[in-house]
């Protein structure tokens, strides 16, 4: 027996395959919306580990989408920094 439903995709926020799949199916969402609804990819690593997995799930749910259609969206900071570090910049 396999346990794919409970398999963690986003390690930082512990979002499972089952949660992502049901959210994607229910809301027919974009990659961005899926992340905002589930918090997948919004954790400590900034999605560096799970972003490509989430994109693949969107491709799976939306039959007409190709990998190139999902925009590569990143926001600074791309590495975790303290508020002190960011605040010091004038």
């Amino acid at each position, binding site marked *: 027996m396999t346990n794919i439903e409970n398999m963690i995709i986003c390690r930082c926020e*512990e979002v499972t395959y089952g949660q992502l799949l049901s959210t994607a199916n229910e809301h027919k969402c974009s990659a961005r919306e899926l992340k905002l609804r589930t918090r997948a990819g919004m954790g*400590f*690593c900034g999605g*560096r*580990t799970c972003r490509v997995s989430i994109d693949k799930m969107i491709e799976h749910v939306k039959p007409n989408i190709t990998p190139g259609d999902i925009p590569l969206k990143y926001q600074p900071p791309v590495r*975790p920094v303290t508020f002190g570090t960011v605040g010091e910049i004038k």
Partner: protein
Amino acid sequence: MSRILDHPVFGKIHERELVSFQFDEKTYQAYKDETIAAALLANGVRKLRVHEESGTPRGIYCNIGHCMECRVTVNGQANTRACLTVVEQGMIVESGKQLPNIIKRMVEQR
């Protein structure tokens, strides 16, 4: 885990200076210039933290600073990557702990 002191292509590791450091109040030995992650693994420690919310155990995953899974508290500075931080003599390292998620509980109780 043991260290790879001899290697068929790289050769032998030369004598290096030892330093000692603490991880969760236990004292360990490391070689100078070694990362916290490498030193702990060499001492048989794989578990570096637990997930803040669920408490599941975590250790190194990418070992080059991308995944943040190995974050520990170093001399009071939280969320420091054990895979990129070099051990220093007397360093105090603490594992990441489970934390109460007060806001989530409040939302659930509404």
